């Protein structure tokens, strides 16, 4: 499916447009902010509501919330995209190999996925954070390592179906080895499911990061993310409710758009095959 056709599917264009706007705002927004996101300004206006000078208001340290929400958004979105990329690479490789080779290897590989799937992962990620320190790189790796499970399952299912197609037989007859077949014939045909999966994995990753940051285990000051901002805002919400409402709104809207986009794409790529694999 071409990109233009895809955008014409019902329920695709709207969330895609909103997401593009949020992304644009996160990238260029700080350039238009009255002060850098971490500039503390005690004298002027701390804890003020939204105004022309500070569209989202300021926090209790006098920092401009508009700049903070934009900069936090950069981080949250980057976490979503990068860790999804990690999950994508592991998940596709794992699922395609298991699905193509089949038999005992498949059973063993999928049993490993089942076992990992049954663990309460958020706790595990926190354990990793406690043990190895709160390095930002660990956040990416931890989230990617969690999210590849979904991807592997779905890719494997799709590979099982692909394996029975004639062009795979033709490739086998032509003398191609399993590695070459997986690389040249299986993976390129997975593009549909992979796009859907990636779209649904991004909000998951953003959620996990903001969960950790909310608890104070994720990103550390002076850097910030939407989760960390929601945490700050929740602490001061009696005095400065806008500190909670703006980051929470952006976080919620972004997640909603990604989820809606994922649903719509799944509908567009195929009616039913993918629907049963996820809640």
């Amino acid at each position, binding site marked *: 499916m071409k990109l233009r056709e895809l955008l014409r599917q019902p329920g695709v264009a709207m969330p895609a447009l909103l997401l593009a706007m949020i992304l644009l705002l996160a990238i260029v927004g700080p350039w238009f902010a009255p002060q850098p996101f971490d500039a503390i300004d005690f004298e002027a206006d701390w804890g003020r509501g939204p105004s022309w000078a500070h569209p989202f208001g300021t926090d209790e340290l006098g920092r401009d919330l508009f700049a903070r929400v934009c900069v936090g958004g950069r981080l949250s979105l980057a976490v979503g995209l990068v860790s999804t990329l990690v999950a994508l690479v592991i998940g596709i490789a794992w699922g395609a190999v298991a699905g193509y080779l089949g038999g005992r290897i498949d059973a063993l590989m999928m049993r490993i996925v089942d076992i990992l799937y049954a*663990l309460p992962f958020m706790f595990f990620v926190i354990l990793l954070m406690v043990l190895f320190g709160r390095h930002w790189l660990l956040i990416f790796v931890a989230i990617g390592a969690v999210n590849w499970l979904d991807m592997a399952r779905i890719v494997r299912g799709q590979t099982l179906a692909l394996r029975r197609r004639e062009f795979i037989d033709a490739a086998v007859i032509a003398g191609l080895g399993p590695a070459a077949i997986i690389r040249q014939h299986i993976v390129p045909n997975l593009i549909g499911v992979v796009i859907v999966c990636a779209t649904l994995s991004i909000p998951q990753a953003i959620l996990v990061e903001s969960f950790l940051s909310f608890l104070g285990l994720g990103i550390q000051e002076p850097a910030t993310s939407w989760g960390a901002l929601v945490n700050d805002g929740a602490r001061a919400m009696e005095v400065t409710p806008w500190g909670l409402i703006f980051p929470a709104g952006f976080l919620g809207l972004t997640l909603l758009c990604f989820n809606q986009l994922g649903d719509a794409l799944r509908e567009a790529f195929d009616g039913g095959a993918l629907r049963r694999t996820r809640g």
Partner: protein
Amino acid sequence: MLSYAGRRLLTAVPTLFVLIALSFFLMHLAPGGPFDSERSLPPEIEARLAAEFHLDEPLWRQFGRYLGGLLHGDLGPSFQYEGQTVSGLIASGAPVSAAIGAAAMLLALSGGVALGAIAAMRPGSRLDRGLMLIALTGLSVPSYVVAPLLILIFALSLAWLPAGGWDGGIAAAVLPSIALALPQLAAIARLTRGALAEALDAPWIRTARAKGLPEHLIVLRHALKPALLPVLSYLGPAAAGLMTGSVVVEQVFGIPGIGRYFVQGALNRDYTLVLGVVLFYGALVIVFNFIVDLAYGALDPRVRLA
């Protein structure tokens, strides 16, 4: 049925073992020991501490000792709460966490199934699309956003309910349970809607319609039972989701449950406490998944044979 249960158990036991082993060895792989501090201790004291906690033994023997302790429900001493054991801390938080978790599960299940059923009655209608958009929103707004917003609205603005704290009363449990339940409620509503809409397309439903049964009886008697199977199998992940959510909700509302100990432990690098909670919740999720699998097998014979 018995062989099915046996096969399921064959997954549950290795899972539990992987969980324990992975957590344990990760903990010992971590740079720095539990007694590292700013001041370096005299070597005799360090040796004494290491001997006291058996840190001088080879790793595999420590693992054996830890496993042996686990069998007795002993998760070791807490490094931060002096004189308290991890098991004791978990036991003191468990009733509170369980009460709120059970209330949230009940709410999520009843509310989710009801909303999903209403939406599935008229697939594609405005009501259906509206409800599903709300459900998707509920799924997208995490508990740590919902919880402060609930406090802001119902406790601070309207002053209907307490903003936090725990006295064992119902009023104190309402907002935390709702905050905890909402994402799961949304997920269950989406699942029910999908499965029920599919079930309502089935040929036996056409038969029921042809018999002239009223619509609500068709749904309640014929369509809902097969449609609830996916919901049943979602209860395992839902339980895990509730545990994860409880960490945040207990933190926000100041409820003395397991989740709050966990966060405090994590922020203070209290290794044994964090490990203990991970194992406790991990085991709980595994047991819960096992029970759900058994129930599923009992309800749907096809699963047992597969």
